[in-house]
């Protein structure tokens, strides 16, 4: 069995003491930042980036990946206890989790989400191990035209689910594409949009752009607000679900895992979309829709298993195609590239120890998270009592130092500041920041394949339609576009009708 040989190879990488330690560090910090509302995984990545320059590549990636999926576990805690989602995906968890907490069933909700997260996570990991090599060998066949259309699909998909209105999300994608080409053009050597600043010759740094847009602008928008916190404590006994809870949770966890894993594989989709869909599905399938919104456990376990399955499965398109599903994954891919690893179809073949080590570390990391989650629930609730006015100066400091450490350039700190201001302005005007980051990281790839495809076809634009794979991706993209326009039109008509009556 090839798979077992591969897993054995992965185990030899992931089961060393240092790999275990960095895996633990990653998932622990991911959990911490996931729990804290308004913090998110980016400051944790910023904090750990400097560490990654001093340890071997594989350990570095295991650790960064741990932050990513650890954050999904932690995100549910604040949603359930305070109705304050730590991550976008966890907003759905609050729909049923918070009512459960109000009924005094917070312990059970936390317990069930931990289990559902674990099941979803493991399901996603299995899919990564089984499916990623297949997709990679399929993607090896891709030429420039196919890649271009795939990237287009990912970008349009990201705009469609990006929040905000579709035109604005789409604009953010294009703005990101533009920011992504700042610097020296690889084909001609021409400097583009560098404003005569020598630091810009290598382009803007994705970590600085993302920290500014998400981290700093979030602090600017919330620093002056009061955050209320409350005291809660749990004994292990109050966390045990009843037999009825378990009976209801089992099928929904299974459905959520499968749906989430499916969403994770799609480029441009992510954990947030997975939880929304899983919740919608449960509501449609249930025989007792009146229980939803009042603490229905199915509506809790399905999205939780879905977002964790998606967080794991998201590594499939990210590692084998180089196409990330959401903004945090885009920053992680940026971090990988800083380490000289190019995600793409060749990654598994070129670095099998890295890929399989990562897969095994996912399994271990999920087990660590399960162990961290339940017995330490007291610690997580205490973490929620730290006031934001103490947290945000520390967050800002970590962001600044993390960004500086990449190139030891103060210029990057000013880039963070400027993008913080830009992000704040865009937020005020209703532009969602996530699509920008995706456009930013995919832009060089998009331009390269766009140019190459048309060069090979001698300027014949039909090349994107005549290849069946490329044509299929394009058709899907147009489908999403048409759907988004139709939905926007429908709401507009509805609003007008409501206006008239």
């Amino acid at each position, binding site marked *: 069995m090839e798979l077992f040989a591969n897993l054995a190879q992965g185990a030899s990488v992931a089961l060393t003491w240092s790999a275990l330690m960095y895996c633990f560090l990653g998932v622990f910090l991911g959990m911490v930042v996931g729990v804290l509302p308004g913090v998110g995984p980016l400051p944790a990545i910023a904090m750990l980036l400097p560490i990654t320059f001093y340890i071997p590549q594989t350990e570095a990636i295991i650790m960064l990946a741990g932050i990513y999926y650890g954050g999904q576990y932690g995100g549910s805690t604040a949603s359930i206890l305070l109705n304050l989602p730590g991550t976008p995906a966890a907003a759905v968890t609050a729909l049923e989790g918070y009512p459960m907490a109000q009924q005094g069933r917070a312990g059970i909700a936390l317990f069930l989400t931990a289990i559902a997260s674990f099941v979803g996570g493991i399901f996603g990991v299995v899919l990564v191990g089984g499916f990623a090599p297949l997709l990679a060998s399929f993607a090896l066949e891709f030429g420039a035209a196919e890649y271009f259309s795939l990237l287009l699909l990912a970008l349009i998909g990201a705009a469609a689910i990006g929040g905000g209105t579709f035109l604005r999300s789409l604009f953010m994608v294009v703005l990101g594409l533009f920011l992504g080409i700042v610097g020296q053009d690889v084909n001609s050597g021409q400097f583009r949009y560098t404003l005569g600043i020598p630091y810009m010759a290598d382009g803007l740094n994705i970590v600085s752009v993302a920290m500014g847009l998400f981290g700093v602008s979030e602090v600017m928008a919330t620093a002056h607000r009061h955050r209320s916190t409350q005291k809660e404590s749990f004994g292990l006994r109050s966390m045990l679900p009843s037999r009825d809870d378990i009976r209801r949770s089992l099928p929904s966890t299974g459905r959520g895992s499968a749906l989430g894993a499916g969403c994770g594989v799609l480029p441009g989709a992510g954990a947030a979309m997975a939880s929304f869909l899983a919740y919608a599905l449960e509501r449609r399938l249930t025989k007792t829709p009146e229980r939803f919104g009042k603490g229905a456990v199915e509506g809790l376990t399905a999205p939780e298993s879905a977002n964790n399955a998606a967080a794991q499965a998201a590594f499939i398109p990210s590692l084998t195609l180089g196409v990330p599903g959401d903004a945090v994954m885009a920053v992680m891919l940026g971090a990988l590239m800083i380490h000289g690893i190019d995600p793409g179809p060749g990654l598994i073949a070129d670095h099998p120890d890295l890929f399989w080590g990562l897969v095994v570390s996912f399994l271990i990391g999920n087990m660590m998270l399960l162990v961290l989650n339940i017995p330490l629930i007291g610690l997580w609730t205490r973490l929620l009592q730290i006031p934001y006015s103490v947290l945000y100066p520390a967050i800002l400091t970590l962001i600044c130092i993390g960004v500086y450490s990449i190139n030891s350039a103060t210029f990057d700190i000013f880039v963070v*500041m400027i993008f913080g201001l830009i992000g704040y302005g865009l937020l005020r005007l209703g532009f969602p920041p996530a699509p920008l980051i995706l456009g930013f990281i995919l832009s060089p790839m998009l331009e390269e394949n766009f140019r190459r495809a048309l060069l090979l076809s001698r300027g014949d634009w039909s090349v994107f339609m005549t290849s069946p794979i490329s044509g299929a991706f394009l058709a899907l993209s147009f489908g999403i576009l048409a759907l988004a326009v139709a939905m926007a039109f429908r709401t507009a008509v509805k609003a007008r009708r409501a206006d008239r009556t």
Partner: protein
Amino acid sequence: MKMRSLKALAPVDWISALVMIVLGLAVVVGALDYRLGTAGRMGPGFYPMLLGGLMVLLGMGVALRALFGKAADSTSEDKAADDAREEAANSRRSLICVPLSIALFGLLLQPAGLIPACLALVIVSTLAAPTFSIKRLVALCIGVPLLVVLIFVVGLGLPFTLIRGVW
């Protein structure tokens, strides 16, 4: 009814459209400086020209919708507008303090060292908080630099000057 038509007039859409079109035009003007080439042999200006054009088109789309569609699916815009009104007064402080604190950090880091830079960042950014507490400020001024030095200098051995001329 009355409320809705008032909201449709909210300047958020117009400002957005203006920002989008101006940015798009700037990108197009920038692209004029670079060789365009043809589709089969693209120069460095071809792709940014397309992007800039797309940005202008999207901006015009938002402007058209603001003109005809009455506040279509504008939940986020309404929210943004409401937030803006509600917070305009007390958010001005964080709008100034947070970027200023980062700028000070950047300016002080190399000439003065890591600890002065951290202190400046902490002190200025703390002014954005809803309440001021001297106890919290002192705790942060001791805690944050200590944490940072422990993680990055002691733990990772990053080559930072702690205080220029002293360490």
